């Protein structure tokens, strides 16, 4: 694998009420901030990928409005995922493995305050068996919390949702020497993987998260010390389950940023986990950190990203010495 690092991260001052921000208002300051932190010019960005959800604002192709912020004329290489920005980062990371570009811009944004989150989340579920009932994200979390409680975990079986939030985040990924040039302490992505569980919620064992476990194994969370972990825990009971499936011990500090329980700018929340974990490496407080992003009901789809101050090849050459 090619060495790719998170070299810059910015997030908005999130809002818990609608301030009338457009997509461009949310994203533009952050794009300019990550460019300015790295000293990079827009022409050095070989690929741009964003994550958002049109249902949040009820406008088809709402992500197109955010393109105003990135200077998309003359045409640039650009892509979008109808998912959290963490999956946009995954696509950009895969794109960078092709080897022909050295830098990518990733952003995610969402307005959680203006819409009906129970209705919106229900439309993302199975349209035959689940969506017609309009269960919503809070009830889905409640089913998992109760299952965990029944299985002996010390959790509240009646979960409360995170605060509805408007916000955005942006990240620049850079490869090899470019990363070292634009960042004094790059946060190298040493492993990145995502796995999904069945659509049929009643066919899953909600007291386990096999997708998290498999993604963690493939991303190489273990062996090695994990100083910090940023987990996409929109509900409190999810932390105990994720800690177990990720194999984190008590020494790992979870969500030093405050996590999604403090601010949940939906579609940016997962990308912020990667950005916050990277920021702990940028500022020298961590050698190695894990970020997690989730999507779907009851942690259906999980992404695990391992970040380190040293690349895999750095560690090999140290061993040789």
């Amino acid at each position, binding site marked *: 694998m090619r060495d790719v690092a998170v070299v810059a991260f910015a997030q908005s001052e999130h809002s818990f009420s609608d301030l009338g*921000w457009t997509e461009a*208002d949310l994203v533009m300051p952050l794009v300019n*901030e990550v460019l300015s932190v790295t000293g990079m010019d827009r022409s050095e960005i070989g690929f741009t990928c964003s994550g958002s959800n049109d249902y949040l604002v009820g406008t088809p192709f709402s992500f197109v409005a955010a393109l*105003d912020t990135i200077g998309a004329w003359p045409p640039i290489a650009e892509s979008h995922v109808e998912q959290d920005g963490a999956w946009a980062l995954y696509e950009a990371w895969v794109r960078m493995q092709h080897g022909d570009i050295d830098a990518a811009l990733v952003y995610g944004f969402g307005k959680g305050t203006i819409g*009906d989150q129970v209705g919106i989340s229900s439309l993302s579920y199975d349209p035959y068996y689940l969506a017609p*009932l309009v269960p919503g994200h809070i009830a889905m979390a409640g089913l998992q919390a109760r299952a965990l409680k029944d299985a002996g975990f010390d959790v509240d*079986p009646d979960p409360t949702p995170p605060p509805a939030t408007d916000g955005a985040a942006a990240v620049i990924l850079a490869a090899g020497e470019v990363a070292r040039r634009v960042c004094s302490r790059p946060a190298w992505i040493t492993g990145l993987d995502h796995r999904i569980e069945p659509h049929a919620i009643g066919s899953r064992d909600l007291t386990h998260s096999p997708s998290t476990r498999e993604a963690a194994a493939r991303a190489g969370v273990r062996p090695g010390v994990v100083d910090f972990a940023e987990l996409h825990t929109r509900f409190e009971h999810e932390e105990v389950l994720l800690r177990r499936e990720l194999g984190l011990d008590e020494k790992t500090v979870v969500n030093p940023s405050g996590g999604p329980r403090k601010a949940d700018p939906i579609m940016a929340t997962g990308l912020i986990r990667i950005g916050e974990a990277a920021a702990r490496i940028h500022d020298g407080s961590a050698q190695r950190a894990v970020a997690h992003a989730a999507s779907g009901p009851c942690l259906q789809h999980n992404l695990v990203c391992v970040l380190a101050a040293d690349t895999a090849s750095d560690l090999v050459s140290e061993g040789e010495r």
Partner: protein
Amino acid sequence: MTTQASSSSQAAQTSASRASASQTSDERVVHVLEFPGGYTRSTGPVIGRFLTGLRSGRLFGVRMPDGRVLVPPTEYDPQTAAALGTADEDWVEVGPAGTVTTWTWVDDPRPDHPLDRPFAWALIRPDGADTALLHAVDSGSKAAMATGMRVHPTWRAERTGAVKDIACFAPGEGPAEVPALVPAPDGEAELEPVSMVTLPHRLEYRLRGGTVWNHFIDGMAVGQIRGTRCAKCGKVFVPPRGACPGDGVPATEWVDLPDTGVLTTFAVNNVPAAGAPEVPFISGYVLLDGADIAMLALVSDVPWQEVRIGMRVRGVWVPDAERTRSVKNLKWFAPTGEPDVPFEQFEEYV
């Protein structure tokens, strides 16, 4: 440790300026996203067969390769993706009673929920099944709910072959009586197997106009079209945008534009549209004098046969007394009678 603090002074400044500007209007506008009549989906053979069973007041599952019975069934094994339900002998009638495997309480039901009083969502494993389906349990109180409790379905008389044919589940073994189908068919054979479902889509939003939009609308209220100019490339955008799409920088300088321009392209519409005048009506792109982007508008006060690309047009406004804070103040564009503009002069904007 504080959370989500922005490390960006630039972001802080932008937010501050937004905050002061947005105090000028705290108005919220209701926006509705709706697919009238709902969104239709074909069911495929497996889901269709299950839903056909619901219409008859019966629950069916399909046997997976490992021998377990999947309810509600899908065309594929959730674990291995193997095809399921292709043979009649793979289908198994289950329930109707079952066991709650987990649940959560709802204090405030929504109008689109199965019940109009507090209830529990539960995963229910019907007898003879190895997986669970989601539905509402009408237990009367949260205290009456427990994992492992026995429940049975309560069927609607108006069954269409949908998951809501089950009104809800009720505590106890039953009997799960199935009322005669309403409206009554001439015979079971009269009913085709279920092959489609319709899912209503209606979402409401409460929006606040942004700073740029508010300033534009304030202009429209007094009959003034306002645009923004990019400081880098000098282009003028109308309707205004807060960022230059070419440069990705703020476009914050305001420009008052005349209501005259050139029609760069148009369409004669013969299909009625909500909010549009009687057919045929003409929609077109008008490049206002001094603007660098054409805006979508209606064209009228001219027979449709006489509308031309390159035609000079001027805005027609509602009378002063009828003006509101709305883009509808500008009714449409009408010909000025000036000579047409040669194509080469606006070619780059087409």
